[in-house]
């Protein structure tokens, strides 16, 4: 039960790991992605991506500015314009 999560910025590949769940700040509302999510493509607003390593763990927050999130059967890829902070 793991979701493959990748966070990429133009400067580098920031993350590539197996996580439980990721909450993404979509431009039309936040959405959470678990393993087996339907294929989905959304623009994202400036905000924080919350990464849950396991079911009960406290989320790790990564602030990003603008970009895209793509969910494929292989996992979730967040293409962020840049990291904030």
């Amino acid at each position, binding site marked *: 039960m793991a979701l493959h999560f990748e966070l990429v910025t133009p400067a580098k590949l920031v993350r590539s790991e197996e996580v439980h769940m990721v909450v993404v700040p979509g431009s039309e509302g936040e959405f959470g992605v678990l393993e087996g999510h339907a294929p989905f*493509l959304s623009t994202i607003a400036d905000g924080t991506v919350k990464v849950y390593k396991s079911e009960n763990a406290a989320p790790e927050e990564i602030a990003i500015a603008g970009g895209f999130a793509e969910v494929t059967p292989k996992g979730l890829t967040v293409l962020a314009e840049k990291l904030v902070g």
Partner: protein
Amino acid sequence: MASLKELKGRINSVKSTQKITKAKQMVAAAKLRKAQSAAEAARPYASRLAGVVASLASRIVVSESSPKLLAGTGKDAVHLLVVANSDRGLCGAFNSNIVKAARLKAKALEAEGKKVQFYLIGRKGRAVIRREFPNAIIGGFDTTTVREAGYGEADAIAAELVALYDAGKFDVAHLFFSRFRSALLQEPTEQQIIPVPAPKSAVAADSVVEYEPEEEEILAALLPRYLKTQIFGALLENAASEQGASMTAMDNATRNAGDLISKLTIQYNRSRQAAITTELIEIIAGAEAL
């Protein structure tokens, strides 16, 4: 025959030149490593984004309403050549190769009766293009103020290009830069950037993908970003190529200077010996005369 003093002076000046080229070579080697890793780090983003654009573009039928960046202006009259050069010299034929590629393309386009305009990035190469195409430069981007061109610069360049495009200043844009193959090999490359060329690798649409917001809107937001990424990639490739070219050129220069020094030293020693011999002969001849 040059006097001993002159020779000494020349040897010293070549020696100090060699010191400069050697230092520049070592600096270039260090910078090359950095530029190369930056170029490599940017690849995942570019390839993922290209994948997304490809899959989106394959779903959308190009029509009147689709974004102009994808569909084009419907004309093919004015071509913009975006030429990315470096700010500094001492890098061999790096800049002139890029400019040469751009000039060939410009000549070919003009022969077809198209109008050619230039947009120049970087300080080098400006003079050459201005001399040959005096009124064709419609813009430029100065990278001398920053140490190395990054995403911010790519952002600004892309924004300016899109503004020019929206204002109807050109119909097609080509980007010229040098692709980094290795420290010894850099290829001047031409790439069409506007309208965004339809990606070849149409991903098999096996699953139904949901879009939020609509496909068209996403595409409209994605295309400028794609353009930016391509310019960013070109800037990084250029930076790595520049350092590679510089390293090779300076290596050659250092070696040539070394050859020259040994040649001059031999000449210096010979003339010194000749002078001594002449003096001796004079003394002996004088002594015999007594």
